[in-house]
């Protein structure tokens, strides 16, 4: 089913007359939250392939400049800009967000809070259809005259605002429209998530009985809603600049390019936390299940997450320390930036404390979850370097930044996604994935991943700056040593991509030939494990009542070491 969903997706964007409930209706026009979640997931995975392919093309160009890249062709300067721009946009807007928030949110929220569907199923479908439309528009932007947009995912004006500067007249506009459509899709989806989990909880489920992943997805949706508004207004203004010729952001006509940077990063920084929080939630579910432990300090984690979410709104200008903002402002944002390390550190400490006294079983999802913690930790601590405004003078727009945010985004979007996928695969498809192949995939991803980005810290320290298609114009950077490092990173990258075939094989073969999954293969507590795998339409034969929190593992006096939320008595 998976592959066909991807290939037929484009049809769903167009209206159809009413069919009878056939395959098409069931999988493309369904209002069932599980199907919509899978649609998001397959679209997101398809986009991940596109984004990975782009990364492959430009990493090859960096390692072997001027060479014809196998399966791609030569990468010129304009094309290089287009590849990095769209790699960034795709991975954040069309992979991390749909998979982590929309896919897991759609599949998990109704199941975990014990109701039969989202509160607005048709709005949910509309959200996916707008999202799909945004994908189509993005692909259109690659094929218009001048090629795809090449002004980086931040799309700073005046470069992005004036066609004479960026040379991608319609490419820039279509990119912007695609991003704006994606925002609208997630606004609609987010309202649905928030309303569902606020209003449709199962009887007996208190605020503190909600599984962490639901909390995290809801908080992420709220943060998204609050941060994206000004940027939507800004996108309209930028689109007017591009298409009509107004000068909101063009200084030669009286505008101010810095305003866009503020609008963008007022969204862009919370956006990091928007995708981080769901991943943290997924990891919490997995760690408690496989350590057979109660989550250490549920309330502490919850409150520190609130604090993180609040602080995330007042740190945005640390992306602009040397971008021309008033230097006095940098000191304020330096303090808030380093403040945010405090709640995040508290969350990570609590996660690690969860392991204490556990009975840890290293199944594939657990490996991914632990891998997430370690790699994200490195991403977090390198953030301190960049948050320090004075050091940012040296590191701004260098490969140190690239390595840093890949150490945060890769664990979030890819490791977190795989963790969730391996964990909930039985619930999604009713079959188990192969454990050995899963472990091979894990090690084959995590080791090359470090092989890519640890070296990039070093080239960043050597002063190598970003978004350069070929370093031959910078004599200090075009040395054999640095080139060797670039080749090493590229070889690691190709290795990592090759290991994804293990996953693809495992994923699709298990879907049809895997061992049939019982309702609760991991002996987990939350409500989604109390229904058959995969859950039928309407989820629960009888809507559950909740008696306790989601992490009551190894409770003394119980026969079993888990205690489902809807079980009235001791077992």
């Amino acid at each position: 089913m998976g592959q066909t969903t991807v290939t037929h997706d484009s049809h769903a964007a167009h209206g159809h007359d009413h069919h009878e409930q056939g395959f098409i209706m069931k999988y493309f026009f369904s209002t069932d939250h599980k199907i919509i979640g899978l649609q998001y997931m397959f679209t997101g995975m398809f986009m991940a392939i596109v984004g990975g392919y782009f990364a492959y093309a430009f990493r090859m160009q960096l390692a072997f400049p001027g060479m014809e890249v196998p399966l791609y062709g030569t990468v010129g300067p304009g094309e290089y800009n287009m590849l990095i721009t769209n790699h960034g946009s795709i991975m954040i807007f069309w992979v991390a967000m749909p998979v982590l928030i929309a896919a897991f949110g759609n599949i998990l929220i109704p199941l975990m809070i014990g109701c039969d569907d989202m509160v607005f199923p048709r709005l949910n479908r509309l959200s996916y259809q707008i999202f799909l439309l945004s994908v189509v528009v993005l692909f259109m932007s690659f094929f218009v005259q001048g090629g795809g947009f090449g002004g980086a995912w931040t799309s700073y004006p005046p470069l992005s605002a004036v066609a004479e500067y960026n040379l991608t007249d319609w490419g820039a506009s279509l990119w912007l429209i695609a991003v704006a459509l994606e925002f609208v899709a997630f606004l609609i989806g987010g309202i649905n998530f928030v309303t569902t989990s606020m209003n449709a909880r199962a009887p007996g489920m208190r605020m503190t009985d909600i599984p962490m992943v639901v909390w995290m997805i809801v908080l992420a949706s709220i943060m998204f809603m609050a941060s994206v508004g000004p940027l939507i207004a800004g996108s309209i203004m930028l689109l007017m600049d591009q298409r009509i010729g107004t000068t909101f952001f063009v200084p030669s006509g009286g505008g101010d390019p810095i305003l866009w940077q503020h609008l963008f990063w007022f969204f862009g920084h919370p956006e990091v936390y928007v995708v981080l929080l769901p991943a943290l939630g997924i990891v919490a579910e997995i760690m408690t299940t496989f350590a057979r432990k109660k989550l250490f300090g549920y309330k502490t984690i919850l409150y520190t997450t609130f604090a993180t979410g609040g602080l995330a709104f007042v740190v945005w200008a640390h992306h602009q320390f040397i971008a021309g903002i008033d230097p006095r402002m940098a000191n304020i944002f330096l303090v808030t930036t380093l403040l945010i390390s405090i709640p995040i550190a508290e969350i990570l400490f609590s996660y690690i404390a969860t392991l204490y006294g556990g009975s840890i079983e290293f199944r594939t999802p657990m490996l991914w979850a632990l891998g997430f913690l370690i790699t994200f930790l490195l991403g977090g601590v390198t953030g301190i370097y960049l948050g320090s405004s004075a050091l940012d003078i040296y590191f701004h727009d260098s490969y140190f930044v690239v390595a840093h945010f890949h150490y945060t985004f890769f664990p979030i979007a890819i490791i977190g996604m795989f963790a969730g996928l391996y964990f909930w695969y039985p619930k999604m498809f009713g079959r188990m994935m192969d454990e050995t192949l899963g472990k091979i995939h894990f090690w084959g991803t995590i080791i090359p991943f470090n092989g890519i980005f640890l070296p990039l810290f070093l080239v960043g320290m050597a002063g190598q700056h970003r978004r350069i298609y070929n370093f031959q114009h910078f004599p200090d950077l075009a040395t054999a040593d640095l080139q060797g490092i670039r080749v090493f990173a590229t070889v690691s990258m190709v290795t990592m991509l090759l290991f994804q075939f293990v996953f693809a094989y495992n994923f699709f073969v298990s879907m049809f030939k895997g061992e049939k999954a019982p309702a609760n293969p991991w002996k987990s507590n939350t409500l989604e494990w109390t229904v058959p795998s995969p859950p039928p339409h309407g989820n629960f034969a009888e809507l559950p009542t909740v008696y306790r929190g989601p992490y009551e593992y190894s409770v003394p006096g119980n026969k079993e070491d888990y205690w489902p939320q809807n079980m009235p008595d001791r077992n």
Partner: protein
Amino acid sequence: MAGAHAHPNYVKIWALLLVLLVVSIIGPELGIPWLTLLTAFGIALVKTYYVAAYFMHLNFEKKYVWFLLLISTVLLGVFFFGVAGDVMKADGQNWQDCISNNTCAEQQRYVDGQLR
């Protein structure tokens, strides 16, 4: 549902809003700056309060909704004051807006929507 509470007299509120509207138009005509600010924007806030509180029934809604809307406005304030240091001013520490005071040594200009 909203039916549980006594309804305000909508027409009265509407008449009050119209009076406020007239004040907000006449006030600025006098040309006194502080009066302009007060009548134009102070009265806009009052009007907003009446529409929100009575037409939108916020006064009879859970307190939580007030909270939600206020948080939104506060965050906008954060955005505004974070940005104001750069965008609202024509100069600052070690930088100046050379377009507004015409000191740019090198600058292309937009004329009639075309880059010159």
